[in-house]
Structure formats: C-alpha cells, structure tokens
C-alpha cells in the first residue's frame, strides 16, 4: 500500500476513512464533492416535501395516508443523504486506488422511492372523494 506523500498533513478523520492509496487528480475529488452536494440537495427537497405534504394535505387526505406519505418522503430523504456519503466515500476510495467507480445504488433508490410515493398518492386521489 502506498501512502500519500503528504499523509501527515491529513486530518485524523481523513486518515481513518481514506487510509491508503494515492491522492487522485484534484479535479476528480472536487467533482465527487459536487455530486455529493447534488444528492444532499435532493434529500433536502424530499424532507421539505415530506413536512409540507403532512400539513398541506390536511383537508384532502385521510390522516393515516398523509402521515404515511410524509414519513415515506422523509425516510427516503434520510436514506439518500446517508447513501450519498457512502457513495462519496466509495468513489473517493476507488479513485485513490485507480479502480472503477462503484455503481450508484442511491439512483435506483430515488427512482423506486419516488415511484412508490407517486403511486400511493395516485391511488388515494383516485379512490377518495365524491
């Protein structure tokens, strides 16, 4: 295992989470950070949506359905943010060892989660009301 030339300058956390390999091209590290931030913004949007639907749909949906959809969206946002960090770390580790990048498992998670939320709301809209 090769150590980075400036390994001693790194923080304890960086040494702990990214223990070996070589520093990748700085542009790739910055690109990885931007992708992580894009996922975080997606997660924040889901959290805001979850909070909003619980309060917004008071007169439209049954309380249990509202809470279910709100928790689904908030849970999806939390999963995505945790997954975004795992992915950031995985990509950074892969780049340090010049290996292929890992598959983005949070992408299908977002797709399936969004579809489930949309189907639940769609069924409720179709089956409720006069």
């Amino acid at each position, binding site marked *: 295992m090769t150590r980075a030339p400036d390994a001693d*300058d790194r923080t304890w956390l*960086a040494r702990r989470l990214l223990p070996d390999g070589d520093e990748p091209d700085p542009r790739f590290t910055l690109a990885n950070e931007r992708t992580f931030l894009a996922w975080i*913004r997606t997660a924040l949007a889901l959290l*805001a949506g979850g*909070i*909003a639907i619980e309060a917004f749909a008071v007169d439209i949906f049954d309380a249990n359905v509202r*809470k279910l959809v709100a928790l689904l969206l908030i849970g999806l946002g*939390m999963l995505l943010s*945790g997954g975004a*960090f795992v992915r950031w770390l995985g990509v950074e580790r892969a780049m340090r060892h010049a290996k292929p990048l890992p598959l983005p498992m949070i992408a299908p998670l977002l797709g399936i989660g969004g579809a489930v939320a949309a189907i639940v709301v769609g069924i409720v809209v179709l089956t409720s009301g006069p």
Partner: protein
Amino acid sequence: MTTPRHRGPATARRRRAGRSRRLPTVTTAAHLDRGLQPERATLAWSRTCLALVTISAIFLRWVSHYGAWLLVLPAIALVAAVVITDTQRIRTNRGVHGIHRGSLTADPLPPLMLVGVVLALGVAGACFALVAP
C-alpha cells in the same frame, strides 16, 4: 462575513487553520484548470446553502400546523447555512491550492457534518409528522 476587517472567532479559526496547513491565499487556478473546478465546487456549496435557507422558509410556513417547536427545523438548517457561508473562503482556497499543487486531500468532515444535519432534520421532521394533528 469574509472581509479582512471581521474579527470574530471564525476568522481566528481560519487563521489558525491557514497557518497549520500552510496555505497562502491563492485567488485562482484558472490558468492551470480551464474547467474552474474549485470555483464550481464553491458554487455547489452555495447552492446547498441556498437550499437550506429555502427549506427553512418552507418549514416556517407550516409552524401553524405543527406548533412552535417546529422552529427547531429552520434553526438547524440556518445554522448549517451560516457555517457553510463562513467556511466558503477556506474551501475555495483549499481547492485552488490543490489544483496548483496537483494534489488535494479529500476532507470527509464537511460531507459528514452535512449528512448529520440532514439526518437531524429528518428525525425531527418524522417526529413532527407522527405527532401532528
């Protein structure tokens, strides 16, 4: 916030951080990196900061439904937004310096803290959604 006249604890922290990592301020690496990666990374942090401010406004909108304790959510988001804004200058400088040196050490702390903020917002939001009328 990042003017040289500012004499808050954050500035002192920045100076200490600057000294310990021996990073002289370099304004740009545009001649080495035509893709302007450090600038784009800083803008991505700015967008994230704006997203935090925006969801704070959305949370405020629903205080009447959830009660005053919901103010915990915008408080967490706004503190995170202030911390991001306050550290933008260090971040850009690190990136520009990394491009100049050809080597940039990824720091897991900012992403980890941001995930912590989102998880805290999520746990609090889920509790509010469960107990709301």
